């Protein structure tokens, strides 16, 4: 199972699409690792600089409909190549969300009010997050201390994460 934690990158916008996560011109590579320098290259959010702001990041927290657009699994791969295995959002586009779990990674939805709270409390000062898998909660560490945020993940999605992805799961089951 992959590790789900690290420094949080806050992306304060809804509808961040797959072209913004990884532009199509990089889809001609057949290796996942080469995507690493291009994550969020075309994402324009005030105050965000993909060249400097991705260092040591392990978790992305963002708004609604993250990952809309193309089916490219290069989007989760580009995140993975940067050590990001967990995206937390108000909602996800279907294919992106499925791709994350299919790769043994996590796309976790939290209510809008919780997302608002995370932005309000931590986006300015910075925080890191650890996942307590047993108790289904995120531990958010900041100067103010540690806050617990409960999350849910379906039994099926959990089994994908535990299996390491859909290929392993399907191979064992079908």
């Amino acid at each position, binding site marked *: 199972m992959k590790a789900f934690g690290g420094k949080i990158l806050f992306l304060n916008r809804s*509808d961040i*699409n797959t*072209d*913004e996560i990884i*532009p*199509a*011109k990089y*889809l*001609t*590579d*057949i290796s*996942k690792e080469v995507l690493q320098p291009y994550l969020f290259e*075309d994402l*324009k959010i005030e105050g965000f600089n993909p060249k400097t702001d991705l260092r040591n990041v392990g978790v992305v927290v963002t708004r*609604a*409909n993250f990952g*809309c*657009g*193309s*089916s*490219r*699994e290069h989007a*989760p791969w580009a995140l993975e190549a940067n050590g990001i295995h967990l995206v937390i959002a108000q*909602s*996800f*586009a*279907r*294919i992106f969300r*499925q*791709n994350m779990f*299919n*790769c043994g990674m996590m796309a976790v939805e939290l209510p809008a009010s919780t997302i608002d709270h995370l932005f309000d409390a931590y986006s300015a000062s910075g925080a890191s997050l650890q996942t307590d898998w047993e108790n289904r909660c995120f531990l958010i560490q900041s100067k103010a201390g540690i806050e617990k945020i409960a999350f849910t993940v*379906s*039994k*099926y999605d959990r*089994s994908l994460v535990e299996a390491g*992805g*859909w*290929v392993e799961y*399907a*191979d064992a*089951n*079908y």
Partner: protein
Amino acid sequence: MGKTIAEKIFDFHRVDAPSDEIQVIRLDAVFCHEITTPTAILDLVSRGKDRVFDPSRIKAVIDHVTPAKDSKTALQGKILRDWARRHNIKDFFDIGRNGVCHAIFPEKGFVRPGYTIIMGDSHTCTHGAFGAFAAGVGTTDLEVGILKGVCAFHTPRTIRINIVGRPPSGVYSKDIILSIIQRLGVNGATNRVIEFDGPAVQAMSMEGRMTLCNMAVEAGATCGICRPDETTVAYLWEFIKNEFESPRAALAAYGAFRPDADAVYDAVIAHDVSELEPLTTFGYKPDQVKTVREMQGVPIDQVYIGSCTNGRLEDLRAAADVLRGRKISDRVRGIVSPATPDIFRQAMNEGILEVFMQAGFCVTNPTCGACLGMSNGVLAEGEVCASTTNRNFNGRMGRGGMVHLMSPATAAASAVAGFIANSPLYKP
């Protein structure tokens, strides 16, 4: 309790339900192209599982960058080509016979009512036009589809949109779907199937229905779907005539994939198109839609007519009707890419390509290229394209470029004007 089209298709194909929400279904076809499939192939090889579940149910095409533009795209093509040969995949379409996947596969008769189809391409929802459940997936789902012939989906929930009213002359399926995306928003149908029904859909050609279903994903939908009817059967007849005694018998059999009158929907929306105007997008999201009238005069640098949305014969005919006897503006580069070789040939035989060339368009081979800024018409920073494609995302057709989505008729009229403009075919 009645069932929707998608529920009926799932009932025929379910192999497992690992949870209340998830169903694993058997696949009738797995479609492949050279951008998302090679990584799946290489992963299967590295796992020692270089197998395919059924070579006759796998269809593959090189379409995104063709001819190859560099060594990397040449390698992607080679990986797909070698794999198709190695596994005896007969329906593999290479240069000279290749076209945009969502245009060529239906044209070859590979899509039937009631089918389940996946492809590593978000616009796979196009094939729902035939009453099939067809969904875009990522490379991992594709890989398992190739190996096992199954895929997992959420239990389908459906939004039904009854399209009523007769659209004015010069208003097309593209304008209708843009108006629906504007109404639903870019995630208004996330994790939902959209059933497009009603008199306006029944009056549409298969081409028009494909345009409609093609952009269902721009509202977040898993699949757009239309009930199979006489039009569907007439389109498919040459491929199914050995399976059925008559078109009437085919229609009766496909009745298994029509929705029940008491089917349960998440929402039922009546969408009146009788006073719809030609539409176009502004901004970087496909739900940012205005009338062409409101956008009239926005200068453009390039016009692109083609793609899985609007590169079919009906689309080229509409554009040619606008262009006949006219020249495009000096400041505009016009590019038309007929979506398949058959469409190209038919357009040539009908004199449509001549009209495009007389008007000053460049006619290119069938390819997806420009739509996603990979080849064949990439924009420079600051340039604006009037395009018949499906996405206006920031950077989509080239970094720093702006894309305005519209119908082929509006795109052709804009090419002549040099700015966004309504076509003379539009008669409110």
